[in-house]
């Protein structure tokens, strides 16, 4: 097993009702598989997972990327700074 820390921001944090969460995942899980798992485990977030942006260790990550051990994974909507 592998451990990752999830961080939620903006609309996604509001829907999740939490800022962060540590979860255990299989040794080789992709970003897409993580999104599927979150959709299943947290039905509130199912819709958000369709347009979510994901970063892994502070770099944008895409569906096929495999999560490294102890990754910091952030989930958030398109950014709106400025």
């Amino acid at each position, binding site marked *: 097993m592998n451990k990752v820390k999830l961080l939620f921001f903006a609309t996604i944090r509001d829907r999740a009702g939490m800022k962060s969460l540590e979860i255990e995942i299989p040794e080789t899980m992709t970003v897409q598989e993580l999104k599927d798992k979150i959709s299943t485990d947290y039905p509130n977030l199912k819709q958000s997972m369709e347009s979510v*942006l994901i970063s892994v260790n502070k770099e*944008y990550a895409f569906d096929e990327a495999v999560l490294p051990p102890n990754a910091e994974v952030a989930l958030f909507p398109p950014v*709106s*700074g400025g």
Partner: protein
Amino acid sequence: MASLPTIFSITESELDLNDLLAQITLPSTGAAAIFTGMVRGETLRHGSAQAPRDGPHETAYLEYEAYVPMAEAKMKQVADEIRAKWPSVEGIAIVQRIGKLYPRTPTVLIACTAAHRDTGVFEAARYGIDRLKEIVPIWKKEFGPNGEFWVEGEYIPKPGE
């Protein structure tokens, strides 16, 4: 090149333009282009799907948040992109203020210095704010007479960004 000043930060403090400009001014720089964004109290822009708006409406304040360590890393990336595109640029400052910000308050600053004004400093500052709004993880929630809602962006970063 290693000594060229590059400032990138997320802060809860007031933006001090005088201080930021001084920090990126060198004996060799004669021109600075600075962009700042301010909170608007009245706006005509179209709303999001979450909160469709027809006419002008009022904003009481905005609340900004950031994923700070990633935001600062992405600001550094924007600065690196500016240096790659405009090698004449000498100093760069990219600062986003977060927290509860009221109308007329400066929220963000992008500044570039160079020897002269015809070196790309204006284009570089423009590029900087465009890129900040695309890839730097910052979000804002608007509070007004019609309630509160997240202002959502549109840009989807591509691999390598």
